[in-house]
């Protein structure tokens, strides 16, 4: 932590760890703000009955997906712009597995359900 090791913050030269920490703190505050807005939007849509039926389910699903991306970006520090991609690739592979297993289960069981009752 020598004096030569400097970063920049608002035009002022500061020690790099200080600049980084401020940057990080701001990142978490933004993440919290976005997450709160998205959460309130999802609950608001339901409580105030702004939408109904499939449109409502699609809207809260989209808000949830958006909030997951926001939390990945701001809390878990994972996004598209980093040079290190293994973590993101692992997430995408996990997403694929989930899609196959969850999607497949729902497909088969819904189909079975309809044919047993119908």
């Amino acid at each position, binding site marked *: 932590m020598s004096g030569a090791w400097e970063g920049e913050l608002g035009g002022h030269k500061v020690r790099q760890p200080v600049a980084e920490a401020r940057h990080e703190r701001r990142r*978490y505050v933004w993440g919290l703000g976005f997450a709160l807005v998205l959460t309130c939007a999802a609950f608001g849509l*339901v409580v105030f009955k702004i939408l109904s039926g499939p449109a409502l389910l699609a809207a809260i699903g989209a808000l949830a997906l958006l909030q997951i991306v926001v939390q990945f970006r701001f809390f878990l520090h994972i996004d598209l712009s980093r040079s290190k991609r293994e973590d993101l690739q692992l997430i995408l592979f996990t997403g694929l597995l989930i899609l196959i*297993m969850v999607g497949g289960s729902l497909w088969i069981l*819904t189909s079975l359900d309809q044919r047993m009752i119908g």
Partner: protein
Amino acid sequence: MTDQPNQHPGINISHARPEDGRHTEVTVFGFWTFLMSDAIIFALLFATYATMVNRTAGGPTAAELFDITNAFIETIVLLASSFTFGMGAVALKEGRVGGVRLWLVVSLVLGLVFIGLELREFAGLAARGATAQASGFLSSFYVLLSTHGLHVLFGCLWIVVMLAQISVFGLNRQVRSRILRLGLFWHFLDLVWIVIFTVVYLPAVAT
């Protein structure tokens, strides 16, 4: 700064402490692999819930049971604790042991409040006859929610262990690395909760 590449998920403190670098990168990737397999477990519990949600066996339905106010408070408490842990991670990056302690304790308290709210909700449901044995819907509900709740409980236990380790060892390399992984675990639990309130609570109240 922003132009430095991240070496692993979560806050990177190795720029401030170059000696952490490679070790942290490897262990965090290993832990990240565990979290992704945990995500698959949760995904399959969600699939089970989705197929069982209308199988109420003549018992109470989701629409009759769930209280959206309680779900909202639980959501805010868990989100707040995810944020306060982030503040602790920043303090860790700055090497302020007092800040790390403070924010870990705040996150722990919020985590315990969340567990308390969940247990109170379960007790209220059970008092109205909505126990896990009542129907396939309630079995899958309790399995999903308890799996998440147990994760939070173990996260709280982990925070207590880290507080003890900070007292004994200080913020040495291993302790710093463990707190980073605990942070990933803690944020991950909030991610799972987003899907829980979206799949379990909101559709029940919407119909």
